[in-house]
């Protein structure tokens, strides 16, 4: 009977382990404790004390990690990073009441939604004097004119990257939507696991507006996505560029900076903005409404730090995304500024569009996306 007792004990342990495992998504960060002994370095704002640490909720590989240390040295605030892999996930976490984040990095259309839903705090411009470093067109972005809630962080484009030693240079979205079972890339392709981005690719291929809410057009796009699925190894938003670099896959739908970063491992990778056009995006630094005054102050200081021309330049160079920071250009090397994968020429830029909130049509997108994902 003793042995039986042990088995039960083990079962209990398993049950606990299983319960622990069934929650794989990153746990929401616990509120950063506000320190009571911390003597805040000078930086402003009345009687608000700086917290010991804050959490930055960011995309993966989207900041030069050395900058955290430098910010800590300058301010005494340690920054901890937590990651998400889609705007939808970020939005869902905030909607679900996750608190404790001091800085988040939503894309353009998501900022619009977040403002509407009251999820963002208004920035205190007095704490962000470096705001003046932004290029003019980024101070008046359509989703938040005047930088009331957010500061543009990086901008980029969505297109595709491929291994140039094994693939003939494709220039059109058709390389995804007209799969050829006899080609080398068949079965070695990924698309973004992101309904808006993948639909935008299909809509651009079909020649429709990437923000359409027309059901017939969306259905056509869905059919194209199901056709494309035949040659996909998977849907991936986090590791697709590494998989092209390692030779597992040969072609991937994704964001320009990610492919440029992967070129450090594999110089044969080439990034293309398709000739039909596609998505241009701006990711923004914002502070959630749920942040405490202490976290907000530290968040604004971090934003201000990231806007320092020299810091912004180094950060851009590290993650290979274009900086909206005009003053940073003086610190960026010539070949970086001339790289058309990072700064697309005007005629390409003209064909790119922002994703916009689609309101009620969101449920149509998701329903059709579920159909794509479950198609065999």
């Amino acid at each position, binding site marked *: 009977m003793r*042995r*039986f007792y*042990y*088995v*039960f004990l*083990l*079962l209990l*342990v*398993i049950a606990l*382990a*299983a319960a*622990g*495992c*069934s929650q*794989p*998504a990153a746990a929401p960060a616990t509120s950063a404790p506000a320190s009571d002994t911390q003597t805040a370095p000078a930086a402003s704002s009345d009687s608000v004390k700086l917290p010991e640490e804050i959490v930055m909720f960011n995309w993966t590989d989207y900041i030069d990690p050395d900058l955290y240390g430098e910010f800590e040295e300058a301010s005494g605030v340690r920054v901890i990073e937590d990651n998400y892999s*889609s705007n*939808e*996930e970020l*939005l*869902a976490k905030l*909607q*679900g009441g996750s608190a404790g984040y001091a800085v988040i990095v939503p894309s353009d259309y998501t900022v619009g*939604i977040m403002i*509407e*839903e009251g999820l963002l705090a208004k920035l205190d411009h007095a704490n962000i004097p470096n705001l003046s470093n932004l290029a003019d067109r980024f101070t008046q972005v359509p989703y938040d004119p005047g930088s009331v809630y957010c500061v543009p962080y990086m901008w980029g484009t969505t297109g595709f990257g491929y291994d140039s030693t094994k693939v003939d240079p494709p220039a059109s979205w058709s390389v995804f939507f007209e799969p050829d079972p006899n080609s080398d890339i068949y*079965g*070695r392709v990924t698309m973004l*696991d992101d*309904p808006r981005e993948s639909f935008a690719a299909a809509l651009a291929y079909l020649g429709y507006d990437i923000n359409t809410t027309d059901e017939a057009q969306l259905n056509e796009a869905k059919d194209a996505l199901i056709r494309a*699925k035949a040659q*996909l*190894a*998977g*849907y*991936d938003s986090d590791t697709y560029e590494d998989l092209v670099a*390692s*030779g*597992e*896959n040969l072609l991937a739908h994704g964001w320009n900076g990610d492919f440029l970063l992967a070129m450090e491992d594999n110089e044969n990778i080439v990034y293309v903005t398709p000739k039909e056009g596609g998505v241009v995006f701006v990711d923004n630094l914002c502070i959630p409404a749920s942040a405490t005054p202490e976290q907000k102050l530290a968040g604004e200081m971090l934003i201000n730090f990231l806007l320092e021309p020299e810091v912004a330049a180094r950060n851009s160079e590290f993650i290979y995304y274009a900086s909206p920071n005009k003053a940073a250009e003086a610190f960026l090397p010539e070949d970086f500024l001339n790289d058309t994968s990072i700064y697309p020429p005007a005629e390409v830029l003209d064909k790119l569009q922002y994703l916009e909130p689609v*309101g*009620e049509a*969101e*449920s149509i997108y*998701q*329903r059709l*996306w*579920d*159909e794509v*994902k*479950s198609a*065999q």
Partner: protein
Amino acid sequence: MEQTLRRNPALRAWLLIAPAGLFLLIFFILPLFIVIIYGFLERGTYGGVVWQFTAENFSRVFDSLYFSTFLRSLYIAVLTTLFCILVGYPLAYFMTSRPPRQRNLLLLLLMIPFWTNFLIRTYAWLTLLRTNTGLINVTLMNLGIIKEPLPLFGNDFAIVLGLVYGWLPVAVLPMYASLDRLDRSLVEAARDLYASGGQVFRRVIWPLSLPGVVAGSMLVFIPSLGAFVTPAILGGGKSLMIGNVISNQFLAAHDWPFGSALSTLMMVIMLFATLLYFRSTALKAKEERA
């Protein structure tokens, strides 16, 4: 105090269950009710709920798209359970045939995988299964055994493999427990009555270990049916299981009520499966007494 407790067994019972009971009430029963209630509300455009009654979410559950996803999950969960029994039963039998000291060691070995997080172990499978750079395909191709890589990743095979791998120890334990309790003299008696090896297994060992098999199946079937990490990682995100649909409703589609309705339905199905299990074991016990 002690005397009051002794005189009042009801109070004593209440005090004993109070900590666990309160915990479950606050962190399990109440949230459960929230899920059920949310299932009957309308969605907010970007998440949250609008307090307006509707039964539409539950009718959408039977939409062919979600229903077929559910059937697929069922298929994968059943396959997983079958393989866990097929592989786990002989192992459990082997373990009970060892001397007690070895058995404890074997039990410990069985638990070792749980020392590493399930997510990490699932990712580890990726490095083995990847189609073109995975260890298995690369090795087989380099040895010249195969010319084209085997389709090991991004399909049902990978999902079932990952699930069987994850839940096998859980299936073994109850089967081990019931085989361990089995009175060996019954086997000897059957042998004395000239039963063949096959007959002994079919008519003595298997029926007596059945409760363990059923318990093991339940422990594998229920989490497999709701799995969403394994299909997302090893399935390459290309195939949906019902767990993915539910997590998508919250994390991507901003449709909490529909996600709640799906969760509620899942719970009802699990409840029925469990009831079925208890009824079958209760019947069994009745038969034995008769």
